[in-house]
């Protein structure tokens, strides 16, 4: 099939026509679902804010169901599809494999997402994202998810096929670039995730239309979490790939050790999905051996991998900055970083928040004994907003600011507002997650419409601090939603009203990477290690480890007080 390749004059990256269109439509669909999910977030936070308590119970559960699915699945996976096509076709400088199949995949994803949303907004599918059986939603709810999953699976195989095309046509030498390897990791986790989703959602759909009488609730929970939690692990692999890409884009940084970084991605491939077991640590049907092996042993290999990435990415930036002469003291390299560039600031706020808030709380939750402190409390959404919103969503936002001129060929509108956006969104989300985790530690329920459970025989008198923290969840949530709205305004506004930029030269064949390539394409598509001369990063890593140990100790101490055994 004949195609054309466009060489971006600003980055040197080469976009194949079909792949570029697929990236554009997936990114636009993603932003539309972010917008819908963001509007729904207003309803969620203003209801969980005890003094406001806005929506009725029925409306709240409907809104929370749609918010969870639109944000955790549709926004993120549409964007990830754009990332997969970028990491394969663009970074490997080749045509996309089977573009018609890729379009079919996109169409199925879109139909599935709309079908699922319609089912939820009809009001009879307020089953939360987890949709535990025997609680039943409309058949269209499950059908929509299944169609979306099939479409995403097709996208994953188009990505893998594109790797084959690039290898066969020898468009790269040696191994694929590290960012592409990270995308391979995300794809592998996605295949496991989608297969697990199919295994459990197809029988549940058949149950909803009356063909099957029963799906065992515990089997459902076990397999559903292989889908539900692993879908968030796709995000982790994807946003860490983006961190590496942004370090290369903003600083020309090479990883401290490419071998170590690839090894860390391998640990993700082998062990990251097993962390799904922490959702079942309070389930009586699972054996202790299963719980211990999946969480307390294998999960730690994935935690090790995250800590490696958390060290090597800022370390790579530090080495690159020191080479430019920012060598004074431990932190001149960080002070002189481009904090006014939203591509960098968004990525760095994401990295720090993901590590300190999402990472530490995730390991705490994955420890069986400590999990009993916070199981099914609002601590859990506090944790996953730190990983998925601060980690993934903010990384995607940061990457978007790079893509507006490079992929969308538009000048970004209102750059002053764009400078502020990562700070407003990221820092308000930090606070949001912290107070949510604080309220969860005091026992506030994860999902209940009324935290006081008023009128119920199980009503519980929470301390005033719990109400205060839930009020702060509301305030911080509104600030974060405002930050998200600014992102959508800048993104959509740039597409609609931004000045058109030079698209660059088009050719009918891919042009090999020039011997003196432009910095962006050279560093993302190249190989090599930068070394470990990064004392500032090692100092930051020690701060992280001390925080980790202290938080762990505090929770064990807290547990000992909850269970007065002495």
């Amino acid at each position, binding site marked *: 099939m004949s195609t054309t390749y466009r060489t971006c004059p600003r980055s040197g990256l080469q976009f194949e026509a079909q792949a570029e269109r697929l990236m554009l439509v997936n990114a636009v669909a993603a932003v539309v679902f972010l917008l819908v999910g963001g509007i729904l977030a207003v309803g969620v936070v203003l209801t969980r804010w005890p003094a406001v308590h806005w929506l009725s119970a029925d409306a709240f559960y409907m809104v929370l169901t749609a918010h969870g699915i639109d944000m955790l699945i549709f926004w993120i996976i549409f964007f990830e599809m754009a990332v997969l096509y970028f990491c394969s076709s663009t970074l490997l400088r080749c045509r996309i494999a089977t573009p018609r199949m890729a379009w079919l995949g996109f169409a199925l994803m879109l139909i599935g997402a709309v079908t699922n949303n319609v089912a939820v907004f009809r009001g009879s599918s307020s089953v939360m994202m987890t949709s535990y059986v025997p609680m039943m939603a409309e058949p269209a709810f499950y059908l929509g998810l299944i169609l979306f999953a099939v479409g995403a699976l097709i996208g994953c195989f188009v990505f*893998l096929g594109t*790797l084959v095309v690039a290898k066969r046509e020898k468009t790269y030498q040696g*191994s*694929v670039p590290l960012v592409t*390897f990270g995308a*391979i*990791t995300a*794809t*592998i*986790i996605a*295949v*496991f995730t989608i*297969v*697990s989703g199919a*295994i459990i959602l197809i029988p549940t759909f058949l149950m909803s239309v009356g063909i099957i009488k029963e799906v*065992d609730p*515990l*089997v459902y929970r*076990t*397999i559903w979490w*292989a889908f539900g939690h*692993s879908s968030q692990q796709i995000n982790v692999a994807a946003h860490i790939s983006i961190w590496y890409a942004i370090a290369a884009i903003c600083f020309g940084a090479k990883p401290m050790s490419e071998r170590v970084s*690839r*090894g860390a991605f*391998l640990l993700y*491939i*082998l*062990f990251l*999905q*097993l962390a*799904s*077991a922490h959702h*079942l640590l309070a389930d009586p*049907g*699972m*054996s202790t051996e*299963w719980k211990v*092996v*999946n969480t307390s042993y*294998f999960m730690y290999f994935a935690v090790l991998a995250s800590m490696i990435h958390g060290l090597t990415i800022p370390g790579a930036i530090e080495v690159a900055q020191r080479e430019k002469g920012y060598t004074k003291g431990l932190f001149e390299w960080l002070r002189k970083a481009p904090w006014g560039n939203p591509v960098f600031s968004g990525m760095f706020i994401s990295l720090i928040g993901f590590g300190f808030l999402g990472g530490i709380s995730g390991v705490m939750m994955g420890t069986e004994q400590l999990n009993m402190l916070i199981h099914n409390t609002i601590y859990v959404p506090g944790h996953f907003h730190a990983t998925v919103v601060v980690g993934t969503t903010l990384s995607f936002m940061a990457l978007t600011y790079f893509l507006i001129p490079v992929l969308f060929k538009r000048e970004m509108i209102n750059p002053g507002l764009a400078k502020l956006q990562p700070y407003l969104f990221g820092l308000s989300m930090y606070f949001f997650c912290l107070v949510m985790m604080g309220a969860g530690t005091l026992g506030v329920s994860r999902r209940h419409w009324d935290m006081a459970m008023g009128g119920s025989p199980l009503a519980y008198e929470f301390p005033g601090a719990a109400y205060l923290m839930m009020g702060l969840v509301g305030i911080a949530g509104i600030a974060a939603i405002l930050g998200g709205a600014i992102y959508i305004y800048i993104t959509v506004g740039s597409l609609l009203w931004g000045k058109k930029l030079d698209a660059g030269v088009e050719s009918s064949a891919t042009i090999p990477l020039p011997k003196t390539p432009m910095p962006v394409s050279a560093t993302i598509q190249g190989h090599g290690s930068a070394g470990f001369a990064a004392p500032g990063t090692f100092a930051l890593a020690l701060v992280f480890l001390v925080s980790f140990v202290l938080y762990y100790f505090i929770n064990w101490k807290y547990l000992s007080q909850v269970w007065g055994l002495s």
Partner: protein
Amino acid sequence: MNQNDPNDLNAPVPFMQELLDNPFLLLFLGVMIPMVVYSLWGVIDILTIPVAK
């Protein structure tokens, strides 16, 4: 021929690099390991819960 020279195209490819350069082998491992350790083992645990008498 020097195995440690990254510019030597004739040097044998180390085992780990062969593994990391094979996305389909990684796909097999990345799907099979959690399928067995998490999903299959978990379902076997549930199905072998003794029935109450």
